[in-house]
């Protein structure tokens, strides 16, 4: 672990990662379709959490409106597909451009006028909310009554048109999550990663060291938004229907940030672990409480479990587990 170590990742971390990947690759072969659908939910949460973690966990700018970029990615790809038959992969690229530009614009507007901290967070909510209302009245994409993709068989795997079974989506999302992990790891070892974290820790000190704080904050937001929109496009083709009130919902923005916070804000693997913990917890509570006729028991237990995690491990589950396993999330 001394400086200049030749290994990018220490051996133990590489081994743990390899085990994780193998287990994830093998899982759909041994579990039933219900578990696969839960795993898909977990992977969506991991990926969105990883994307959000870039701007908030690493660059330290609190965004509470990431549903905006989910929605822009989802609607761009879905609308281009239903109207003009544009391939989802092309539509996804268009979504990346749209969401990246939206993220950059919102960040540039805020930071140019020195809106920061909680006020920046409020602004991100405002943009997500008014986009939701805008889409409620946007006839070309169905307005409030929704946009529907032609439903096809849920069997095969038409990768080109993103039509296929949940297992296909599972593997696509797994690739996406691993891709995000690789990208984040790579960025953290570069100058930009160091600069983002310096800005997160102390903006004034960062600026005094020659960092163009504005530029790096805008870049973090643009990248985070663009990554989020890719997940949004997959979400559209997985769920086949889009309503502004659910896609752009503030509840979704909150969901996105919960996994990384539980898992460990500003860590590489925290968002992934957080997604596993949270979703599993939620599902477990559902099945446990199904025998009782008590309304809200699930939410109550879920909330209590979250409180417990936050109280006992405020830095997140991953830093705790990592220390136990002796895994270093090395950046050099």
């Amino acid at each position, binding site marked *: 672990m001394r400086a200049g170590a030749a290994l990018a990742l220490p051996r133990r971390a590489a081994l743990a990662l390899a085990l994780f990947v193998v287990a994830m690759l093998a899982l759909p072969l041994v579990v039933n379709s219900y578990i696969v659908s839960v795993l898909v939910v977990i992977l969506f949460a991991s990926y969105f959490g990883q994307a959000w973690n870039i701007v908030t966990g690493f660059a330290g700018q609190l965004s509470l409106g990431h549903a905006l970029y989910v929605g822009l990615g989802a609607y761009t790809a879905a609308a281009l597909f239903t109207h003009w038959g544009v391939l989802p992969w092309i539509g996804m690229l268009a979504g990346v451009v749209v969401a990246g530009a939206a993220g950059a614009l919102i960040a540039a507007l805020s930071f140019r006028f020195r809106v920061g901290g909680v006020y920046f967070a409020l602004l991100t909510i405002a943009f997500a909310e008014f986009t939701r209302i805008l889409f409620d009245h946007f006839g070309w994409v169905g307005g409030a009554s929704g946009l529907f993709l032609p439903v096809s068989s849920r069997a095969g795997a038409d990768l080109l048109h993103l039509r296929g079974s949940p297992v296909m989506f599972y593997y696509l999302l797994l690739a996406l999550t691993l891709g995000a992990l690789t990208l984040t790891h790579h960025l953290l070892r570069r100058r930009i990663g160091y600069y983002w974290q*310096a800005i997160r820790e102390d903006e004034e000190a960062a600026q*005094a060291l020659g960092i163009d704080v504005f530029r790096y904050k805008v870049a973090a937001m643009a990248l985070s938004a663009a990554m989020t929109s890719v997940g949004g496009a997959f979400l559209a083709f997985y769920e086949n229907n889009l309503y502004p009130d659910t896609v752009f919902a503030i509840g979704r923005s909150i969901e996105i940030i919960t996994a990384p916070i539980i898992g460990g804000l500003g860590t590489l693997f925290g968002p992934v672990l957080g997604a596993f913990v949270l979703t599993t917890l939620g599902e477990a509570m559902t099945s446990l409480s199904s025998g009782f006729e008590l309304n809200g028991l699930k939410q109550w237990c879920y909330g209590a479990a979250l409180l417990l995690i936050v109280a006992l491990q405020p830095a997140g589950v991953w830093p705790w587990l990592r220390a136990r396993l002796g895994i270093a999330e090395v950046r050099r």
Partner: protein
Amino acid sequence: MTALLEVRGICKRFRGLQAVDDVSFAVPRGGIVALIGPNGAGKTTTFNLIAGVFAPDRGSVVLDGADITGLRPDQACRAGIARTFQVVKPFGGLTVLENVMVGAFKASHDRRAAEHSALEILGRLGLADKAEVAARSLTLPERKRLEAARALATRPKILLLDEVMAGLRPVEIDAMVRTFADLSREMGLAILLTEHVMRAVMALSHHIVVLHHGQKICEGTPEVVSRDPAVLDCYLGAAPAGGA
């Protein structure tokens, strides 16, 4: 001696307060100049005007022949000015080495090169054995050193030290003085410092500029300044002196 940094008649007004009023001085290449004065004399404001935190209302700042008046702090840093903060600002969640690497990335995009140069600077400042420690766990004297190390890592033409000795014990002060005297001599580094600790000012500086109520009241060698009646007045509050 040619001047590396030239401050020409800078003024800064905050609401009703004339914080800095027509202050001029110069720092020669490799020179160590101290900016002293009682609390509220305008030392830190002068620093901030040089480092780009505020733009002066009037006057100019010239570094190595280039006008850097009104540049942002990051631009001033890229022009060759590095500064430390009176209240230290470590990147607490990063390790000591990572803190210094952030500074070193100014000179090089390459991680290995940044790491190499950061380690060398940590060695110079006696922090080599703390490289892998989280910055938030450092003691105050160590934090002050880290602050200087990070600034030095940007390979500045001039280093601005804002009360780096404050809160240190005499032994630690002497060690810091030695460190900076060595740095200046070996690297040809120019230093501008503000300081209340006279022990350090007298030991370190070649030239002293005295500010009072935002104005320069005296400048010269330590011997000259320490005997100047106006300086003694403003520090000791003797009989009301004419002028000021």
